[in-house]
């Protein structure tokens, strides 16, 4: 059986590897190649320019702003989303009062909450962004109207029109729309933790906090780590782009005064508005590096001894 095994494996892997190479790796290589050209994206002609695009990028104030905002999103969003999701999942599965003899239970109505939390997931991010765009309308939007109703009519921020608030507004929307997914993910992870661990902890008189930090979190660590990376990549990539592009101020979003510009949006603007596709791919390469570095960092920092049970 042993010989022939290699051939079998190679045969089995060739097709998916070829597809992966063609549709995933090849576009990466192409982008890197284009970042050394002066391709406009509006005609098939271009020439090589060496590292010009890269030195231009390093001098580009707006690039640095977009990098700064993307990094902020990549740090803050996973922290808030994963933290909130862990809290919600714990309350839904473990955090409730004991009743009817069950050792652990979620809070009352937890199955209903699960649906409520998950609901934003079924909406397209574009719809979510549009909805919140109306909610943030300083004149007639839901938020300022609500403030008026409760007697806070004197506080009527411009929300997306205010450079100090705009990025926070965007982050709030992203948290709202993704937290449900992680609640469900962590709930599934918690379901696989044996109940007798909790029973033992309860017998020892552990409260909710101790239970969470000593049992739930360590046993859920792998899931949390994957969730963390996934959220970080969402924050660096497509989700942040859609929300910023649709909601914020400016011809293609990104404002006021570049206060919400993020790397994927800057790539889009350069490629599809300014006719500088080559420069856009250069920023894309920077985005690739940032994403890889983020994933590597989380893997490295999050490394733990695996628990077996």
């Amino acid at each position: 059986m042993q010989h022939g095994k290699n051939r079998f494996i190679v045969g089995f892997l060739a097709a998916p590897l070829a597809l992966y190479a063609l549709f995933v790796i090849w576009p990466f290589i192409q982008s890197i190649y284009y970042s050394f050209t002066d391709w406009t994206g509006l005609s098939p002609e271009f020439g090589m320019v060496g590292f010009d695009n890269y030195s231009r990028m390093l001098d580009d104030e707006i690039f640095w702003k977009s990098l700064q905002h993307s990094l902020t999103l990549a740090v803050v969003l996973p922290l808030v989303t994963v933290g909130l999701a862990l809290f919600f999942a714990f309350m839904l599965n473990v955090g409730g009062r004991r009743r009817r003899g069950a050792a652990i239970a979620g809070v009352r109505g937890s199955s209903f909450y699960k649906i409520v939390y998950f609901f934003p997931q079924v909406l397209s991010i574009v719809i979510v962004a549009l909805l919140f765009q109306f909610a943030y309308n300083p004149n007639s939007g839901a938020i300022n109207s609500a403030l008026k109703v409760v007697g806070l009519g004197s506080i009527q921020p411009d929300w997306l029109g205010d450079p100090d608030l705009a990025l926070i507004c965007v982050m709030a929307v992203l948290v709202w729309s993704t937290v449900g997914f992680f609640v469900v993910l962590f709930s599934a992870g918690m379901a696989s933790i044996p109940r007798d661990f909790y029973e033992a902890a309860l017998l020892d008189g552990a409260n909710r906090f101790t239970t969470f930090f000593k049992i739930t979190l360590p046993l859920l660590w792998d899931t949390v780590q994957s969730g963390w990376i996934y959220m970080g990549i969402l924050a660096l990539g497509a989700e942040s782009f859609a929300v910023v592009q649709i909601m914020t101020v400016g011809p293609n979003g990104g404002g006021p005064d570049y206060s919400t510009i993020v790397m994927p949006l800057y790539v889009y603007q350069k490629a599809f508005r300014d006719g500088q596709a080559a420069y856009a791919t250069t920023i894309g390469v920077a985005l690739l590096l940032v994403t890889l570095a983020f994933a590597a960092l989380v893997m490295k920092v999050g490394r733990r001894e695996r628990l077996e049970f």
Partner: protein
Amino acid sequence: MGSTSAHTNEGGLGRRDLIKRSAAIGLISVPTMGFLSACASSGGDGNEKVEKGTKSEKNPLGVNEAAPLDFVLFDGGFGQQYAKDAIKIYEKNYPNAKVKFTPTQKITTVLQPRFNGGNPPDLIDNSGAEQMDMGVLVGQKQLTDLTALLDAPSLDDPKKTVRDTLRPGIVEMGQFDGAPVWVLYYAYTVYGVWYSQKLLDSLDAKYPETWDEMLAVCEKAKKKGIAGWTYAGKHPYYLPFSLYPMIGKVGGREVLDAIDNLEPKAWEHPAVKACFEAYYELQRKGYILKGTPGLDHIQSQTAWTEGKALFIPNGSWVENEAAKTMPADFDLAVSAPSGLDASDKMPFGTMWASGGEPFIVPAKAANAEGGMEQLRVMLSEASSKNFTQSVKSLSAFNGGTDGIELTPGLKSGVAALQKAGQNVVNPRLQDWYVALQKEKIGVAGIGEMMAGRATPAETIKKIQKFADEAAKDTSIKHYKHQ
């Protein structure tokens, strides 16, 4: 959850070894595959040009009467009906030709791959938020010179060329440097300060001609709980529609030309400073509708049609765009911007009017003659009237408003143009340097100032820096007023 450390040394392949080896295969296969396949952007032979037809009196451009025509239209504020009507005429004139018509709002998304593939359509209305950068298209030689169309006889009168029938400024706007005309603007937009004559009358006020009068009107409105101004806060590049002509009026045309030419210190001209301070005063005195910096163009227009604000800087498309929320007795009117005082260089009435809806014929179009012929049809008196009547905008065709019922805004626009006479200015930043005009000057500069977060002096310094950067940037093509 179990252990994943499966590295068995019992003669077989461990999971890790397998992964390592398959990764190695992947790494080798990537470059080899890569160099075999062609680059995405260099592939494709592009369009095969259709054979030319025979020129005749009825067919001065020599259109191939049987060749299909591919027409992509921006489906925006003006809709698509006017183009459909013009296509019907084309199909009637050339019964064997089929016109493929694609209305879209996503101009770049739809067309960029076709330009890269070398098979663009024959006629494009390159407009809207996703407009392709005209400067780049010209610089990359992707457009057909439309001079042949301009020198062809017009559809209505064989003794007149198409060029003779156009409004002043249209041909120049389509030139970038030198004689070739790359773009034909089909609509004729009047920019200025838009308001409800009815609301102004109810305040017992006249449209203010000087800035002191402007402040007085705003104060009057404020006492009645109406804001003086609102604007598209999320798109503050609407503000220049009235601000730039005001700068021209105060300091003369040369100031605007210097700005367009990206001359050093162009923004530091005293006229610019005076006008910025005038606008800033609106903000400081609370004459701007609250929350305006967070409103987009539709939201601000709605607040304005609801009578929450008196004035809005806008273009003549607003009559069609805001039609849904505009009360029937709104009595829409437009005026040239107010000046500062009697010492202004140009008289009251100086306003910004220029071509809108840029139509282009790609250089690699299969049926370029067909594209131009379709434009010739659209520039006939009948099609132009149809356009004006259905979308409430003037077209590039000079005249053609006789005998049709003009809507209030249009009527007011025609009157304002008449009053302006030769004093029409045409700043070019927004079609020469899109990013500079909209995002940098508009959002980051004027937008911040009007939100009250920067002083005029700071704003001018910031904008001058943006303009200097654009002047130095070798990746954008630079243009100059001739």
